[in-house]
């Protein structure tokens, strides 16, 4: 069987997913709030977490954006087996949908030219939206995940080309120190995304994948999963807390993604996701389109 992709559908979905992601927080993140609130021992931190939960409810009730930051739009497209789609036209359709969401809702366009700082008011620009294309063995299925990546936490991005002699200790120390350095600037409670290995660019990309993974998911590599558990414990013992104003709940979780690396290299990257951990997903199958997170 072959799934043929209608590009008008892609354009509509690119628009719908951007707006939906900005308004409805995924269930796993809501449960993350419940868990942090129940465990929080600091009074100020509890009241901050309560206000964040109230905001999620207000956004849904008033059909408004959770956060004013419309972020850098990212679309992760996964093309399954037997899917027929015109690749370049698919990217153009996503860009059109992204620009339409911005004009028609309307949304704040947060995207500017990096040198002139000119805003086209479309949420688009050179190489933006970010469109990542990957492939899966899933038959007759095309999946689009939309992530509006907030800038406060994106500015909490760090790379260190550690050397082999620094070992895993170097990786752990780097992550803990960057979380301390980021403090309240990255809008905690966060998901701390950590990339380990690969090249410099792959390492940073892994950190982004880790930061935007659903809560409750675990690194497929057992050593990576160990590191997640240890670093999660470490960052939540620092007392930074929600909004960096003190407390236990600094991070919902630390997520790790790994790639093999070179014998001379030991790279580690950190990419942070703020508490407004927004995402929306559409899955196109021959039987219909499913919208979720």
């Amino acid at each position: 069987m072959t799934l043929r992709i209608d590009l008008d559908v892609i354009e509509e979905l690119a628009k719908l997913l951007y707006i939906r992601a900005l308004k409805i927080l995924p269930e796993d993140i809501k449960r993350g709030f419940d868990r942090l609130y129940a465990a929080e021992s600091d009074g100020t931190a509890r009241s901050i977490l309560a206000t964040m939960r109230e905001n999620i409810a207000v956004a849904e009730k008033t059909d408004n954006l959770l956060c004013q930051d419309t972020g850098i739009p990212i679309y992760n497209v996964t093309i399954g087996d037997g899917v027929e789609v015109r690749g370049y036209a698919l990217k153009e359709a996503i860009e059109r949908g992204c620009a339409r969401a911005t004009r028609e809702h309307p949304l704040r366009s947060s995207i500017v030219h990096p040198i002139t700082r000119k805003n086209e008011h479309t949420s688009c620009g050179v190489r933006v939206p970010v469109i990542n294309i990957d492939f899966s063995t899933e038959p007759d299925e095309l999946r689009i995940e939309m992530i509006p990546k907030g800038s406060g936490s994106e500015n909490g991005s760090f790379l260190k080309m550690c050397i082999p002699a620094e070992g895993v200790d170097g990786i752990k120390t780097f992550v803990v120190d960057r979380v301390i350095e980021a403090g309240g600037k990255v809008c905690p409670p966060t998901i701390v995304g950590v990339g380990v290995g690969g090249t410099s660019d792959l390492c940073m990309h892994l950190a982004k994948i880790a930061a935007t993974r659903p809560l409750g998911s675990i690194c497929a590599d057992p050593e990576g999963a160990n590191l997640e558990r240890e670093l999660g414990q470490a960052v939540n013992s620092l007392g930074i807390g929600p909004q960096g104003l003190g407390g236990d709940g600094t991070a919902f979780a630390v997520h790790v993604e790994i790639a093999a690396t070179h014998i001379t290299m030991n790279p580690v990257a950190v990419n942070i996701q703020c508490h407004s951990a927004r995402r929306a997903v559409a899955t196109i199958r021959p039987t219909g389109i499913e919208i979720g997170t």
Partner: protein
Amino acid sequence: MAHHTLDMPITEAQARALRAGDTATLERTLFGIRDATQIHMFDRGRKTRFDLRGHAVIHTAPNVKKVPVSNEFPAGYQSICVGTTTSARMERFTRPLMEQYGVRLIVGKGGLGEASKRAFKDLGGAYLAIIGGTAALESTWITAIEDVDLDDLNPESLWRFGIKGFGPLLVAMDSHGGSLYDTVAATAAERRAKALAAIGVKA
């Protein structure tokens, strides 16, 4: 820990009465300001026609909708979603905002640094922490976009918002050298070694 209801603008004495750990709710007027606004005001010599003396500014760039000018929308903008951005990027503008424009309060998230703390102390001001990422709620405290200046920088224009019950906000930095961020940073620095040792990192 006192709660202050502040009908903007305020005096220096009112600003100096705020202590780190207190809470405050703002009434009447709030100005929205951001990176580009301040880069243009302080690095490129542009001036605003707004009188900011005694006022509070919030680090924001809102989501707005262009609408015909009316009594309800005097600036031709309807507010959709007004939230708060990370303050630290705008650290170097605190002093000129206070010295040149008489601003008393800065509303933001994530905190400001040493230079701002000194400016608050020297000139009489404070930093009020809002909860970042709670813009849907914050938007319900905005009654109108009353006016806008430097609008070629949109969305990083200088906005004048009408507000009602804007808060509670947490006084996180005061004019007496108090900063909740310093306290948290000291705690984290003190706990760092133990946190690393607990996950097997050798000193």
